[in-house]
């Protein structure tokens, strides 16, 4: 019953520093029976001689995606995988489905998928299952049946990230103030989860904090900046900003600075991701906290795959531990940011 996923600190991803590596939290006891090669019904495979496919969801155009893809590629090389197929769905769900199908018809024997969305990948997962190709999903979780449609999920808990951001916010503001939320892209479940975690936690823990605005910044820096510029004018009473990713948070910093306010002091800023730029802002004192969302899935993913083929049982959810950065550890952790 027990997991197999404790000691995942074997290596680091981008080669940055050992600080950046992912670590799996102990899976919750409730995660139930793990998934074995036998129960899943896949043929035995030596990864070294295998064709592995990786389906990336969004363009490698933000630090998270760049680090994620790079880490998979590096680890595949390190292990000596025969051939790694990579595709990028360019944020289109239909493309991700066909990407996966394309890789299957190109002979992929094991798949790592970074899903664009929790729902909707069913046809692709079915196609893989029909060919008895095991699938590991990373980063975002899919709403399908583990050990049937896919082997297991590795990644963060986005609701939890929102919750931790709320805690950091409470700490930074002393539990009082008016907060604006810069939402991620509409309709995206990362947005939904990070909002839910944050809002619920604030409600439960900090009655003194009022959420006065929730506007989308579409996960992009310039949109975040533009929304912030509007809010500075219309809601000058805002004392804190929660940005659902670092890019929007950094956009808010620029907007605040241009308006003659001191980000990190006049207006507290907390965001999620842990990119180098955000941690640097923390070092500069223009930021208050960053909740990490660690993209370096390569080592953990391949290690999990090897365990799976080694006959071990893999728990349904391998939740990784995300770190948190604040003034106290920013400088020291800068090397581990991506």
């Amino acid at each position, binding site marked *: 019953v027990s997991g197999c996923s404790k000691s995942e600190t074997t290596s680091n991803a981008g080669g940055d520093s050992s600080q950046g590596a992912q670590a799996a939290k102990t899976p919750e006891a409730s995660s139930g029976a793990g998934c074995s090669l036998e129960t899943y019904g896949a043929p035995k495979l030596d990864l070294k001689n295998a064709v592995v496919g990786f389906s990336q969801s969004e363009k490698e155009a933000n630090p998270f995606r760049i680090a994620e893809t790079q880490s998979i590629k590096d680890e595949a090389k390190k292990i000596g995988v025969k051939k790694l197929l990579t595709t990028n769905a360019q944020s289109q769900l239909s493309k991700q489905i066909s990407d996966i199908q394309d890789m299957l018809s*190109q002979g992929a024997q094991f798949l790592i998928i970074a899903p664009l*969305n929790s729902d909707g990948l*069913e046809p692709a997962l079915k196609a893989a299952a029909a060919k008895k190709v095991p699938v590991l999903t990373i980063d975002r979780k899919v709403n399908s049946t583990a050990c049937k449609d896919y082997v297991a999920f590795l990644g963060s808990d986005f609701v939890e990230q929102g919750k931790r951001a709320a805690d950091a916010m409470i700490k930074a503001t002393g539990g009082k103030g008016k907060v604006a939320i810069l939402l991620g892209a509409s309709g995206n479940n990362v947005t939904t989860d990070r909002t839910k975690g944050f809002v619920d936690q604030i409600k439960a823990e900090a009655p003194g904090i009022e959420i006065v605005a929730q506007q989308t910044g579409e996960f992009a820096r310039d949109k975040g900046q533009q929304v912030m510029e509007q809010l500075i004018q219309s809601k000058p009473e805002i004392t804190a900003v929660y940005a659902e990713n670092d890019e929007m948070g950094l956009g808010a910093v620029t907007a605040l600075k241009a308006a003659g306010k001191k980000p990190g002091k006049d207006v507290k800023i907390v965001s999620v991701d842990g990119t180098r730029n955000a941690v640097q802002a923390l070092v500069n004192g223009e930021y208050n906290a960053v909740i990490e969302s660690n993209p370096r899935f390569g080592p953990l993913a391949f290690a999990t795959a090897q365990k799976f083929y080694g006959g071990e049982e893999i728990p349904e959810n391998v939740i990784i531990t995300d770190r948190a950065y604040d003034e106290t550890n920013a400088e020291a952790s800068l090397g581990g940011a991506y």
Partner: protein
Amino acid sequence: MNETTPAPAAPAAPAPAVPRTDTPGGKGPRPAAASEPGTRARVAELLQRQGVLAVLLTVVIAASFIYPTFASLDNARGITIQASFLAVVALGMTMVIITGGIDLSVGSVFALGGVLAAWASQYGFLAALLVPLVACGAIGLLNGLLIARGNMAPFIVTLATLLGARGLLLAITDEGATTYLVPKDSAFGELGQGSVWGFGYPILVALVLFGAGGLVLQRTSFGQTLFAVGGSSDAATLMGLPVARTKILVYTLSGLLAGLAGALNAARLSSGVTIVGVGMELDAISAVVIGGTLLIGGAGSISGTLWGVLLLAVIQNLINQIGSLNSSYQSVVSGGFLIVVVVAQRYLARSRRST
């Protein structure tokens, strides 16, 4: 399926408005060429009419040699099922563009259709189809009314409904937080997931719709009126054709088809995913234009659109076959591919003018 457009000699680019240098507003070829039949001429004729088909075949044949995994039944199934949804949307778009209009709202309407279908699927098969069709048809109707009766530019009207439909979708999904699921093993789910010889039902639906669309376009008064409206809206009015009614109908049809495609997609994904359909309008428009339909209206063909859709799907598949490109290079390659394809098609079309 139809092959002829009303303007077999019309060049694939803005013909009447954009003459080649040689003859500004010049007259086309005389019919003399027709009196010398021969295989060569006939092949040329076919190529001219179906420049896209020629390009598509060339690409497919070349790809089959280069990538052994390309020419598999499996791959064909994958490409066609993926293309089928865009195809249904592009079918409506073709008709709209033939009237000289454009429908930018299809991507949002597609997504809305899917969400509504997934939501309604809990009430049974019929509801799952009817609800999205009614709602999406209504959006199309609104487009048509504003364009035909309100005399507003199609581009801007449908741009507004692109926003509006997306907003509606967010409103009914709690800002995208709720994803409605299609009940497992429902008849509606089967519509999206079932297949014949591995070819999914949506492919068959698309084919049937294209057959019907071809007939409507080429062999009915409505179809002729579409060409007339696009060829010269004023002339069509003066000839006593029901121009406004035709426009209203064609946008309604486009809305219906986008909604249907969305519903089929939801059935396939077994959920009403909110993030689909973004930018789909551009894919549909490219497929239509690559298929030889003139954006200024008045000439075009349904079959061309089908080849256009397939060509786009094949290009995407090929980029995956290349395998190791990162996402940025993928964009560069598909942009480059697009240029090559349209220029090639353009030159094929031009060679017909000089014969």
